[in-house]
């Protein structure tokens, strides 16, 4: 067990190194100041405290979408509507932040709860289409993203928009709904704490409750789960609802912790990042913050590279794509793994032989 974990870590590190090597090749091709670009990409994000706060602050929404993806992918449900749910969760939270009248803390909590409720219910669409009609959740959830986006933009433009502003954005949130900053003079809110608490709760849910157990068993072998008497269809629906709630929560926490008005008019991209993160974390919720940190760090590095040199931030997509490719490729380094296995087996056989000999001597 521990050996396979060690192998996974080596494999992950190798994938990241290959990705950086590929990025380096491109940087040397396109940049006039390649060394400066590399410095900005890799080292610069750690050079100032302010940059580190930014990395932590960017981790918040993607931890939530990473967790959402984790829960759904563990049951083999490739639901991709985390993206739409983040967006719509933000919108619902924003609306509640404008129109509800509640004391502080309670107001923010109510906004988050509303976002979770709406997004959880929304996920019933792809989930029930799957269990009742056999429609692929991947296709329906993907399309759902655009329905949620357009519906959200309509609500924003016609019902929430503050006409006194030059651009389309909502009215100002009430102060009671705002999630306060954690570190003064930064944008890092208490959202990071909420995200880490959510990570712990989701880990407990997945590994210490009957629902998480059913989700994981169904993901490993659905026929077996059905045969063992588990409620497969109900669990498939449930995991997507939980996924929707987590993604909606992410949108709410991001909106209330970082903005004072709702102004998203496009999908924010956090749902896609969540998928990458879940894959990096091998669908284990405990590793989600680590993977989120890595993604946020890369993003910061690419932003700094664009700011200070002639390499565009889109380099991020290349790095992400290469990591993705090598992580998903089962055969990557499989020969190395096989060598490890062979070595272990030989050691074990030799050990047994020695044991036998020792026993023989005794006798």
């Amino acid at each position, binding site marked *: 067990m521990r050996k396979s974990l060690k192998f996974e870590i080596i494999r992950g590190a190798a994938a990241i190194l290959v990705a950086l090597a590929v990025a380096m090749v491109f940087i040397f091709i396109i940049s006039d100041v390649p060394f400066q670009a590399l410095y900005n990409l890799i080292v610069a994000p750690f050079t100032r405290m302010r940059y580190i706060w930014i990395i932590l602050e960017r981790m918040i929404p993607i931890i939530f979408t990473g967790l959402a993806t984790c829960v759904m992918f563990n049951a083999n449900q490739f639901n991709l509507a985390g993206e739409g749910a983040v967006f719509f969760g933000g919108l619902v939270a924003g609306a509640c932040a404008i129109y509800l009248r509640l004391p502080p803390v309670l107001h923010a909590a109510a906004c988050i709860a509303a976002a979770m409720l709406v997004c959880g219910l929304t996920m019933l669409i792809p989930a029930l289409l799957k269990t009742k009609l056999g429609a692929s959740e991947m296709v329906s959830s993907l399309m759902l993203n655009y329905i949620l986006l357009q519906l959200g933009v309509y609500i924003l433009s016609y019902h929430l928009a503050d006409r006194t502003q030059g651009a389309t954005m909502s009215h100002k949130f009430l102060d009671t709904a705002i999630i306060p900053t954690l570190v003064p003079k930064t944008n890092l809110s208490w959202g990071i704490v909420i995200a880490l608490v959510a990570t712990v709760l989701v880990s407990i849910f997945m590994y210490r409750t009957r629902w998480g157990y059913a989700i994981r068993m169904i993901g490993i*072998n659905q026929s077996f789960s059905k*045969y063992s*008497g588990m409620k497969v269809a109900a669990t498939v629906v449930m995991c997507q609802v939980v996924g929707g709630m987590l993604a909606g929560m992410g949108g709410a926490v991001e909106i209330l912790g970082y903005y004072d008005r709702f102004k998203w008019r496009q999908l924010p991209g956090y749902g896609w990042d969540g998928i990458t993160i879940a894959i990096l974390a091998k669908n284990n919720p405990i590793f989600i913050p680590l993977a989120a940190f890595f993604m946020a760090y890369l993003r910061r590095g690419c932003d700094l590279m664009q700011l200070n040199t002639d390499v565009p931030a889109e380099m991020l997509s290349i790095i992400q794509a290469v990591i993705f490719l090598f992580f998903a490729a089962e055969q990557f380094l499989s020969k190395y793994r096989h060598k490890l296995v062979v070595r272990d087996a030989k050691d074990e056989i030799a050990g047994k032989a020695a044991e036998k000999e020792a026993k023989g001597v005794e006798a």
Partner: protein
Amino acid sequence: MEDRSEVVRMKGITKVYPNGIAANQSVDFSVRKGEIHALMGENGAGKSTLMKILFGLEQPEEGEIVINGEKVVLSSPNAAIAKGIGMVHQHFMLVPSLTVAENIVLGMEPRKRGMFLDYARAVSLTEEYAERYNLQVDPHAKVMDIPVGMKQKVEILKALVRGAQILILDEPTAVLTTQETTELFRELIHFKEQGHTIIFISHKLKEIKQITDRLTIMRAGKSMGVFDTADVSEQDISRLMVGRDVVLKVEKEPPSPTDTVLSVTDVHYQNEYGKQMLGGVSFSVRKGEILGIAGVEGNGQRELVEMLFDMNQPDSGAIEVEGRPVAGKGQAYIRGLGVSHIPEDRMLYGVAAAGTIEENLIADRFQKPRFNKGPLFKMDAIHEESDRLIEDYQILCRSGGQQVKMLSGGNIQKVVVAREFSCAPKLIIADQPTRGIDVGATEFIRRKLVELSREGAAVLLVSADLNEIIELSDSLIVFYGGEIVAYFEDTSTLTDLEMGEYMLGLKRQSPEEIRRVIHA
């Protein structure tokens, strides 16, 4: 030392699988031209692995292979076929919806105008080889419609058409009736006379004595030596194979059956191809007895078992457990009635292979109050349950946290059995409970099964292993063509030859005799 007549020589073969199991450890193996050579050993001894290496399906970590005096690297089955090696697998590699002739030429199709299958040529090719080797097949029949024995002939023909001089047969008699086995042996001797070499994988002592010239015995991944068949006794072979005398007799008291637990009444079922798989099956199983279902595979047993566990539903008829119908009720409900099931396909239905042993052991009971406290699992209670079952059922593992896929076949089956036997079952459906597992585990599972039945469980045993079904069952029914063709109330005087005749459909009891199996 080089023996001129050797057609195959494998030296120092070592193979380690990705799960860390060293299936072959420095194995030497050689076969002479024109002999029938048995490769023997328990399940998991490494016979199949060695042959897969010879057929190019697996690559060894170490060792060399010499064929007809020439050192070769067999990187794929195609390379092995080019060297004149053919293999007939235990599980047939045929396309059910294609005809016999189409299957035989698959991948080497004779073409018309360079593009289209020349079906007439495929048929004539099939007939030519069938004639030459005296293997009777119907070239036009679809593979899904032909009996198992004929499927095997198709597999053998496939190898011969590809020019096989050395034929590897992986447990060819496992699925055959006694009569079909006799026929196969006649054919094998015919091949031998024509100069072919045959490697015969088996663990059935009688067959080996009957047909082979020499034999190699494997145990735990190593070769135990090569012997002339005439020089070794069955007892010697069995001792070399398992390191002790195999005791397959299961001690059991006479049954004292009481109330009916399972009753099946006039069940009919047509499969998706419109073939009638069950044509009016009725029987019952009572508390305290083991009822066996014998029959060649594909005669409706699988369909019936699926229905008992609501994995499928009958077209008509009733299936009741203690008077409660089960069709359409779902597995949770059926398990709630006290039914447990050892599935035929253990990797698909029996375990979640990537899960831990513990996770697999609690799959049917994780929702019980004793494992939960509010929303949380009581991990202590779960560990305790899992440790207890691992101990009681002698599952060999490092800990309950080990992944099931890392275990050997016998231990995987013990995980299934531990779960299914430990839930106080009223009815146990055991479908091929010991298929493909080692002697130790087999013995253990059989003993447990008898124990539970004597404690009052009703047991329905489905098995293709004639020995097992005669040994274990108190009474027995035989399936043929989706119907019950015989009922034996007492199995103690039954011979496999007699059973074979019913299984092949040569004989059939009267409806009155068969009706006795319904205990109203």
